[in-house]
């Protein structure tokens, strides 16, 4: 194991997969000469050349559509979206083509492609460039949607995504790129989709999250333990589709209360799906309504102070935990 940043873990996964399989290639805006807006692809053009590290025009629909064609014919393209917000332009290619080809072809044609890039707020990119998309993509069958919260998961899940048969929406967070953590060196280390994990054990309340909010939930859990003697169990969902809630149900059976944390808007968000599932499956175990911690229901402000106020921080999570524990 070595300590690596989330950014380096992603780069390492791509390099290892490109070394392993000549059909793997990467494409995106400014990923070659400029080495990536967030420096994820630093050094890769030099290493693999312009046939496998393709600088594209500013044309996301073209990038995604090209990748669908490449994947149908046997290549394994990784498309970097500068931020996932730009992929909205390519929604038809992703939702109506990538996600449907295997189904339409009766299972004859796979679409092994990855669309990856950062999403979410925290780095002052304003309303158009700070959005999260897990609920949007999570709605559509035919896609896998993952949101790793640690460098190890970022590497292991990206490798799983590249090696799979289906299109994968790989959601990163710009605010996590610098985060460091232990990452296994084994080139065949992978993390399967649809297996959530217990990130912190506890017996009083269950906090469910993924991606950047998972890290925030862990910070809140430590604070709760230190300041209020409340031991929260924190579940890292890792993937949104397929969604594995079994460890969450097992935890709620012990704690009888759950708080779901997502970064952005409350209406129709991922937290709504998770909270509803907990209520459906674990109704008789609940001693309080499932609480949701979400961002403010406004377009993301540019101003730093307003951006901070529009996204969840520990006080909201701690407040929600206190509410479901009737400590208010």
């Amino acid at each position, binding site marked *: 194991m070595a300590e690596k940043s989330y950014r380096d873990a992603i780069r390492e996964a791509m390099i290892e997969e490109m070394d392993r399989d000549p059909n793997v290639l990467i494409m995106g805006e400014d990923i070659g000469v400029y080495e990536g807006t*967030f*420096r994820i692809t630093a050094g890769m053009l030099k290493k693999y050349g312009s046939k496998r590290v393709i600088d594209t025009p500013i044309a996301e629909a073209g990038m995604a559509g090209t990748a669908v064609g490449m994947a149908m014919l046997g290549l394994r393209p990784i498309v970097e979206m500068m931020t996932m917000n730009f992929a909205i332009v390519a929604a038809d290619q992703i939702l109506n083509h990538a996600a449907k080809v295997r189904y339409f072809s009766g299972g004859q044609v796979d679409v092994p492609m990855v669309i990856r890039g950062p999403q979410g707020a*925290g*780095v*002052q990119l304003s309303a158009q460039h700070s959005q999260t998309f897990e609920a949007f993509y999570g709605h559509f069958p035919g896609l896998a949607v993952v949101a790793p919260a640690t460098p190890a998961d970022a590497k292991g899940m990206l490798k799983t995504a590249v090696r799979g048969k289906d299109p994968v929406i790989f959601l990163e967070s*710009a*605010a*996590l*790129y*610098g*985060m460091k953590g232990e990452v296994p060196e084994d080139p065949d280390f992978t993390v399967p989709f649809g297996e959530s994990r217990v990130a912190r054990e506890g017996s009083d309340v269950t906090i469910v999250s993924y991606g*950047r909010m998972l*890290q*925030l939930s862990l*910070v809140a859990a430590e604070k709760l333990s230190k300041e209020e003697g409340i031991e929260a169990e924190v579940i890292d969902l890792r993937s949104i589709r397929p969604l594995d809630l079994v460890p969450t149900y097992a935890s709620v059976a012990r704690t*009888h209360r759950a708080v779901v944390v997502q970064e952005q808007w409350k209406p129709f968000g991922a937290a709504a799906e998770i909270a509803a599932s907990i209520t459906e499956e674990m*109704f*008789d*175990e*609940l*001693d*309080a309504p499932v609480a949701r*911690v*979400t*961002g*403010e229901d406004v377009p993301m402000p540019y101003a*730093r*102070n*307003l951006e*901070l*106020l529009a996204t*969840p*921080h*520990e*006080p*909201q999570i701690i*407040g*929600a935990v206190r*509410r479901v524990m*009737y400590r208010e």
Partner: protein
Amino acid sequence: MAEVIMPKVGDAMTEGKVVRWYKKAGEAVKKGEPLLEIETDKVNLDVEAEQDGTLAAVTVEAGQTVPVGNVLASVLAPGEKAPPAAKAAAAPKKPEVSEPEKGQQRRRTDKKDSIKHTTGEYQEAIEQQGLRKDRTAAPSANVVALPEGGRRRSSPLARRMARDLGVPLEAVQGSGPQGRVIAKDVQNFRGAAEAQPAAAAPRASRVSAAPLMSTLPALEAKLVPLSAMRRTIAKRLAESTGPIPHFYLTADYDVTNLLSFREQVNAIEGIKTSVNDYIVRAVALALHHHPYVNASWGDDGISLHGEVHIGIAVSTPEGLITPVVRNADQKSIREIGDEVRALAEKARNRKLLPNEYQGSTFTISNLGAWGIEEFTAIINPPNAAILAIGAVESRPVVIERQVAVRERMKITMSCDHRVVDGAAGAEFLKTLRQYLEQPLRLIV
């Protein structure tokens, strides 16, 4: 050569403190490697090397605070020589105007990576906006009021527990929002219903048998996790029988007079006393005659307590606790009774405050209500003794060669032999006999 400067982290930052250097001057460094840790008024952050090379000209030592933009050191490229010292300690320069090239811009973006970092800024944003509390926690405006007198609000878990335990939900007081019955309320209700008042000691003949059950409920095998209270009980009692050499004395008291005295007292309107209240009073007075029983062992000596505080063992659903009647020797039977009942109620609701269950000088445990004839209790440290009160029973006894039926009660005293010797314990029980068998002494 690349200068290492005090970065500006957040708009409000004007200066930063060097917490420590990870690298020494002359040491080789790699790009991206942390060089030093800085502290702002909000967070601690690492400053990383911008390029490979050798750390040189460290001008700011750990512990020093310098303005933003101040040069802290430099990193020499491989083969590069250190410039004259005067140049390395150049005047502060603003990071905003320095090297507006690509790498620098990226590093500034990185500064926002840390979650720790945004948390400090968040507090600042809250203060700026004059927001005291978190906005998303505000209750929803679309609360639909339930009709008056409608169905009780209750959590699903509370309903399931009530069903499983056979507790009538409508009888349970809800403590949640809008009177919602939650799991804790069902537990407390069940606990209160089950716990017999440990302080009362009715006659053995009145002890009711376990309720008859027409069908036997299935038994459940399970591991009950240790509560903090159960752990404390285990720890303290093990501490007791371990180091404390116990011995036991049992005496049989005739409480016929005491019971008739109590009957007369209870005939007064508005007064209700239990046998236990008389015992507490009797014990408190008897302790006055025997200071060595109202005492504690210590490595430096035996403390004789200047006051009489009687701990009363009370059972609760979670376990045993001993609320304390302070200065019991200065309180009337009625005052003692009122206080014991209030404390027992609090104990069962887990509402006792530490000063209500700590600081006893002597303890009484009464299992008379359970029909226990006699038993031995374990000393409640740092007390030197404890009394185990058995049930009052009608028994034939010989008085002046005649067999008579009298009300009798057995009391067993457990003593810490380091403090109380056999004869001293026996003397105390003898004094107690005067108070219990001649109850008028309790009030004159």
